[in-house]
C-alpha cells in the first residue's frame, strides 16, 4: 500500500536532500554540543575513574580533584595504621611550566605517584612502562597531549622549572579537556619538580609531650646556585606536602565504616569514595563554571534551529499539497488520517536526518579524540536520547503544519 507521506517526501529529491541537510545540521549541532559536554565532564575525572583506590583522603578544603590544599606525608603513615586499610599511598598534584627542547613553554599539571603499584595509575600505557618513572627526572604524558607539550616521541627531552625531564612513556585516555597538560612522574620526581629552584630545610623540635613537630621551609635559591647536573631526587620525608592519600581497603571491608575510621584517625581531612570524588569534580566543572551552561545552551539552540528548519519544511510541504489534503478531507478522511500523513513525514525526516548525523558525529568524535584529545562522547544512552529529541523536534514542528491543514476548507477542491 502506498504511503502518501513517504511518496510526497521523496517526490522532489533535491528538495528532500536540502531539507535533510538542514535536519542533519541541527541534529549534528545538538549531538556535538551534548557530546562535547559529556566528553568534557567525563574527562575532568578520568584519572579518578581509572584509579584502583577505594577511598581518597583529601583536605577538608578540597574543591575538586585538581584544587585542594596540601597535607603532610605523615598522613600516609597514619592512614596505613588504620584497621581495614590494605595499602595507603601518596598522590601529589602540582602546577608548573613545561619547556620543550626548542624553548616553547606550556602550563602543566604534575601528578606524582608511586610507580610500584597501580592504585593511582590504573590506565593503559601504550608506550613505555610505569617502572621507567623510577628513574630520576622521567615523565609520561597522555598520548593526545604530545603535540601540546611540543613533544613528538618517547625519548624527547624538556625541562620542568629548572630541572630536566625525559619522556619515557605515554598514557592513554587520561587527559582532562578542562586542564593543562597532565605530566605523570614518581613522588620523588614530583617533589623535586615542585621545589625546583628552592632550597629546602626541615626543622624539628620535641614538644612538651615528647612528640616531634617538624616544619619544612622552602627558600628561593640564589640564581647562580642551580647545578648543571641536578642531584638525584631525594626520598620524601614525613613533612613533605602531598595532595591526597589513596587507600586500598582490605577485601570485604565496609567502605563507609572505613571512611569514618579514617576521618577519626586523620586530622583535618575528608574521605571520599571513588564515586564521590569523581562526582564532586564533575559537578564543579559543569555547575560552578560556565562550561556546562554554554554547551547546554548550544544544544538548546541546535534543538530550536532544528525545529524551525523542520517546521518550515513541513509547512511548505503542506502548503504545496494543500489541495491534496483538501481532497482527502472532501473524500471523508478524518482529521487523524490527515495528521498521520504529516506525522509520518515528520518521522521519516527524523529517522533519515538522525542516522547520517549520528554517523557523522561518531566519525568526527573519533577524529577529534585522535587529533586533539577532545572527546565527543556519544554513549548508547546519548544516542538514544538524541533520537528521542530528534523525533520530538520533528513531531513538534509538524504541529505547525497540522494547524494549517486543520484550517483547510474542503471546498477548496472545487476550485479549478
Amino acid at each position, binding site marked *: 500500500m502506498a504511503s502518501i507521506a513517504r511518496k510526497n517526501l521523496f517526490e522532489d529529491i533535491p528538495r528532500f536532500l536540502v531539507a535533510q541537510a538542514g535536519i542533519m545540521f541541527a541534529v549534528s549541532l545538538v549531538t556535538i554540543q551534548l557530546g562535547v559536554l559529556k566528553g568534557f565532564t567525563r574527562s575532568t575525572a578520568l584519572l579518578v575513574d581509572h584509579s584502583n583506590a577505594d577511598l581518597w583522603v583529601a583536605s577538608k578544603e578540597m574543591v575538586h580533584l585538581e584544587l585542594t590544599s596540601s597535607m603532610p606525608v605523615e598522613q600516609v603513615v597514619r592512614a596505613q595504621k588504620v584497621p581495614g586499610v590494605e595499602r595507603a599511598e601518596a598522590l601529589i598534584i602540582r602546577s608548573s611550566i613545561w619547556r620543550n627542547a626548542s624553548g616553547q613553554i606550556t602550563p602543566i599539571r604534575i601528578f606524582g605517584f608511586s610507580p610500584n603499584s597501580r592504585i593511582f595509575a590504573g590506565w593503559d600505557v601504550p608506550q613505555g612502562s610505569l617502572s621507567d618513572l623510577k628513574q630520576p627526572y622521567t615523565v609520561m604524558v597522555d598520548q593526545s597531549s604530545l603535540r601540546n607539550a611540543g613533544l613528538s616521541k618517547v625519548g624527547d627531552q624538556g625541562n620542568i622549572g629548572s630541572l630536566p625531564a625525559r619522556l619515557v612513556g605515554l598514557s592513554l585516555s587520561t587527559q582532562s579537556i578542562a586542564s593543562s597538560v597532565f605530566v605523570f612522574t614518581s613522588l620523588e620526581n614530583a617533589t623535586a619538580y615542585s621545589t625546583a629552584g628552592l632550597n629546602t630545610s626541615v626543622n624539628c623540635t620535641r614538644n612538651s609531650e615528647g612528640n616531634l613537630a617538624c616544619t619544612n621551609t622552602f627558600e628561593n635559591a640564589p640564581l647562580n646556585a642551580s647545578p648543571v647536573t641536578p642531584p638525584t631526587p631525594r626520598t620524601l620525608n614525613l613533612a613533605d606536602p602531598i595532595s591526597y592519600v589513596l587507600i586500598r581497603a582490605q577485601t570485604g571491608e565496609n567502605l563507609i565504616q572505613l571512611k569514618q575510621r579514617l576521618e577519626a584517625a586523620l586530622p583535618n581531612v575528608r574521605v571520599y569514595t571513588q564515586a564521590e570524588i569523581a562526582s564532586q569534580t564533575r559537578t564543579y566543572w559543569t555547575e560552578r563554571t560556565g562550561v556546562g551552561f554554554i554547551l547546554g545552551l548550544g544544544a538548546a539552540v541546535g534543538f530550536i534551529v532544528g525545529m524551525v528548519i523542520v517546521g518550515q519544511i513541513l509547512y511548505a510541504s503542506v502548503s504545496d499539497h494543500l489541495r491534496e489534503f483538501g481532497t482527502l478531507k472532501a473524500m*471523508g478522511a478524518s482529521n487523524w488520517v490527515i495528521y498521520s500523513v504529516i506525522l509520518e513525514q515528520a518521522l521519516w525526516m527524523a529517522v533519515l536526518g538522525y542516522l547520517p548525523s549520528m554517523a557523522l558525529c561518531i566519525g568526527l568524535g573519533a577524529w577529534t579524540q585522535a587529533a586533539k584529545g577532545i572527546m565527543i562522547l556519544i554513549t548508547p544512552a546519548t544516542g538514544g536520547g538524541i533520537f528521542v529529541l530528534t523525533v520530538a523536534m520533528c513531531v513538534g514542528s509538524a504541529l505547525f503544519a497540522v494547524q494549517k491543514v486543520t484550517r483547510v476548507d474542503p471546498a477548496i477542491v472545487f476550485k479549478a
Partner: protein
Amino acid sequence: MTATQIDVLQRVGSQATSTLTRKSKPKVDTLAPEDCGVIAAESSRAIAARGVGMVYQSSGERFQALKGVDLDVKRGDIQLLMGPSGSGKTTLLSILAGILTPTQGNVRLLGEDITRLSSSKLAQFRLQNIGFIFQGFNLFPALTALENIEVALKLKGIRGSIARKEAYGLLEQVGLADKAKQHPQDLSGGQKQRVAIARALAGNPQLIMADEPTAALDSHNGHAVIELLRNLAKEKGRTVLIVTHDPRIIDVADNVAYLEDGMLQAN
C-alpha cells in the same frame, strides 16, 4: 498512445456519440413540495434539499450565495446543475455533497439529514456514500494511477491485496489497466479524469458528485468521460450530480436545474 488506448477511446467515443444523438428531451427539474412526506417518494430520492440558503460574511459584508433552493434527485438519475458563473452552482454542490453546511434549510442524502450530522459523522457519511470527480482531477501527483485508487480504498478500510485487486479492476473499467503504474503527470487530461472517475467509484458509493468533469478535456476525451458517467447511472444505478457548463452533457441528463443569482430557475 498505445493501440489499446486508441481502441478504448474509440469504443467509448462511439457509445458517447450514440447517446448524444438521442432524441429524448431531458426533464427539467420542477419542485414538487406536495410530494414531501410521501414515504414512497422519499425512498426513491437520493437527494432532497429543502429551503437551502447560504450566506457568506466577510469583513462585515454579507453575501447571499443561495436563496431557498429546493431540489430532488431520484436514485439512478443524472442531475445537471447549470448556470452562469457566480450563480451558486459550486456552493450548492458543496452543500449537497456535505462539504459545506448551509446557513438555512436542510439536505437529505439517501434518506439521511446530513445537516444534522456532526462534522466527523458527516465525513464518515461522505466516505461511505459519495464519490467525487473534480474539474482539476485532484489526483495525488506522487502516487501512481493504481495507488491513487488504493488510497481511496484504504480510507474505506480496504487494504492489501484486496485493495490492489479492486483498484486494478476499477482501472480496467475505465480502460486504463495498462496505465496502472503511471503517475498523473504521465497521463493525458482525459486519462487523468478517467483515473479520477475510477477513484470516485472506489468502495462502490451510491452518489457521484462531479464538478465540471469535462471542462479541461478536448472533445474526444470529453465524450469518453460523459459516456462513463452515463454508464454509472444507467448501468450501475448510481446517482450522479454534475455541475457543468458543457452543453454536451445535457443529452445524457435526466434532469437539468438552472441556477441564477443563487435561486433555482425552472427551465
